[in-house]
């Protein structure tokens, strides 16, 4: 598909042949003689995807860190405008954050339901909560496992994935897919729970409580891991709020903010659970260890939520409220936010009265959480940069959409 008559592309300027004192970073700042620009390029075993970090280092100490994103940009928002039906966006929305697809679908379905003023049956709400919490556990398992690999411990990753397999089995018997589900539709669900789901979910809960303890013993309280992550990458509370950080990263900095409680949606107010806050037990409040332990404890809380929801599951028809025709009113717009695994996932939908949305803006939590990375890595070592970037728990396809 390459056009042979085109002239060769101009060579982009490289920084590596200039004299010291004349080297500039991408933002235009000149570096000093002692400093070196090094590239943690798009292909790297530990940047969790295609993220390019341009680091200015003085020896091993980081002076500045400039993230470059956009390697996975697919212009999700433009595609949504071309969709001929709001339901078709669901299948596309869960490809944004593929590690946590149920929460993506739920956020969009919620936004569309509020726009169309649809009330879903209670059974649908309970099942959605169960699926979202299972998905939260699965997503945190990936985060915890890959964080172990970043710090050099290869084994917890595989243990975490054994547990994740059981969750994916639960999803598979429900909707047939393991990773990208297209399950939560606007107004309901695509399938009801199969008959063996409740038994299997209860077995999983019993099994997983012991596994959390084992993961904690292996990784979280390991002295070397604590030394690597405590007091590293500290995110102060006011910086976190100013940078609109959300999710476990915000709670790890000591801010008591959880959208399931503070901006309530669905039936979370009927269930008994607590948001987990970082308290600086091993170091300073807001360091990497705090974010890690917040994720581990959130998994336990999710187990409690799933247990209560399974016990209180009402009967009903999950497809009762699915609209035949989706035609919102003209000039209606809404912004709905939910607590996804990584933070505040928001959809801002403007409709113009036709069957396809006029504008959809997806506010991905990973995009916003990543923007605070330069602030918290300045002054640390390169080894700390890897762990800090890992503790933010980004998925590049949500950063880039």
């Amino acid at each position, binding site marked *: 598909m390459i056009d042979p008559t085109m002239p060769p592309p101009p060579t982009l300027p490289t920084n590596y042949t200039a004299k010291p004192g004349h080297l500039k970073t991408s933002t235009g700042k000149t570096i000093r003689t002692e400093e070196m620009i090094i590239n943690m390029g798009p292909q*790297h075993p*530990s940047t969790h995807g295609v993220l390019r970090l341009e680091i200015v280092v003085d020896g091993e100490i980081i002076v500045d860190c400039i993230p470059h994103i956009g390697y996975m940009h697919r212009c999700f928002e433009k595609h949504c405008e071309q969709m001929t039906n709001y339901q078709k966006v669901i299948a596309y929305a869960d490809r944004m954050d593929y590690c946590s697809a149920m929460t993506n679908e739920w956020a969009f379905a919620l936004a569309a339901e509020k726009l169309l003023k649809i009330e879903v049956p209670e059974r649908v709400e309970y099942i959605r909560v169960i699926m979202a919490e299972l998905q939260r556990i699965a997503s945190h398992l990936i985060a915890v496992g890959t964080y172990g690999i970043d710090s*050099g411990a*290869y084994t917890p990753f*595989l*243990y975490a994935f054994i547990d994740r397999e059981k969750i994916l089995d639960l999803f598979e018997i429900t909707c047939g897919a393991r990773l990208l589900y297209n399950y939560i539709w606007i107004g309901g669900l695509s399938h009801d729970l199969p008959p063996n789901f409740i038994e299997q979910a209860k077995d999983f809960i019993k099994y997983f409580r012991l596994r959390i303890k084992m993961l904690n013993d292996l990784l979280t309280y390991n002295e*070397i891991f604590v030394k690597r992550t405590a007091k590293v990458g500290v995110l102060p509370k006011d910086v976190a709020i100013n940078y609109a950080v959300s999710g476990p990263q915000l709670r790890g900095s000591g801010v008591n903010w959880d959208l399931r409680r503070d901006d309530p949606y669905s039936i979370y107010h009927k269930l008994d659970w607590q948001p987990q806050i970082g308290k600086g037990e091993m170091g300073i409040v807001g360091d990497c260890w705090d974010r890690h332990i917040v994720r581990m404890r959130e998994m336990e809380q999710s187990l409690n939520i799933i247990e209560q929801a399974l016990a209180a599951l009402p009967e009903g028809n999950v497809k009762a409220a699915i609209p035949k025709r989706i035609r919102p009113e003209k000039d209606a717009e809404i912004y709905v936010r939910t607590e996804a695994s990584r933070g505040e996932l928001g959809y801002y939908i403007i409709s113009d009265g036709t069957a396809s949305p006029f504008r959809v803006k997806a506010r991905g939590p990973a995009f916003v959480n990543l923007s605070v990375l330069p602030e918290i890595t300045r002054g640390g070592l390169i*080894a700390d940069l890897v762990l800090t970037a890992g503790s933010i728990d980004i998925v590049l396809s949500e950063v880039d959409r």
Partner: protein
Amino acid sequence: MEFIQTLLANQLIVSILLSTLPLIFINVMVLVVLYTEMKVAAHIQDRVAYMRTGWHGVLQPIADMLKLLQKEDIIPTKADKLLFRMAPFIAFIGTYVVYAVLPFSSIYIGSNINLGAFFLVAAGSFVVIGILMAGWASNNKWSLFGGIRSAAQMISYEIPTALAIVIVVMITGSLNLQDVTKFQDGGIGNWIIFGGPLPWAQKLMLMPFTLITFLILFVASIAEVNRTPFDLPEAESELVQGYNTEYSGMRFAMFYLSEYANLFTVSAVVVSLFLGGWSSPFNSFMSGPLWGIFWFVTKAYTFVLIQIWLRWTLPRLRVDQLMFVSWKVLTPWLFVCILAVGLILVI
């Protein structure tokens, strides 16, 4: 060893023969250790590995070696060609010469010099030069980081290694590793880790200090060979293989070979100094020149297994924490041990 010399009158041929014996041993042993590492790692991680080539994958290491042998040899354009080509071989030389002074058995030691332990530490530092050359010559900033970190780490961990060897020398009175092993002959109670063949009072007082010294020597040796938890120079998550990044094919195989040979070397040193080398733990049951090789290899292999176990369980330390451990924890404790052992031996 002497009977080989009487068999062939020519001194040169004898030397060549004796110096290729460790090479054959290294090659065979690396295949075994490679297989062990992969299988042990797999079982720690709750999975199985290597089930297809041969019964339960025993032929896999040979397949790996064949693959590495036939790969294309890529040298980056701007790399320093001479240093780039020399580096893996110098790193391997550093590992290989140490085999000259390891006492495999009561009748075999490559070179029975009176400076065995000293030679070990000195010649073993060739590896540092090799790694620095690899890091610099690759013309890659990440390799440079790996090389510099590795140089700093290995130089600073040579001090605890040398001091721990000094303690053993104080007890035995000789730097010759064969003499040290003969000193510990006679059953498990005579091993230096339990105080050595000394009267009971001295033994009891020495035992805690020799135990500490043994642990410190083991930890410092793991750091010397760049294994987790001290493998920052080749930290896969940060440096994409560190100094190894630009190497492919046979040159990469040389680095790999020297890393696994180092595993065994370090275990062998620890075993000869502290755990009786080739002497049998049961006084004269199962002892003799050929049994010596069996005991030596078995004991060293146990420590190789322990190193593999540590690698797959623990996270890795950061560079400045590494330095902290070496200079502020291991070295002061060794000074205390030297003082204590010296006092106990004099009294």
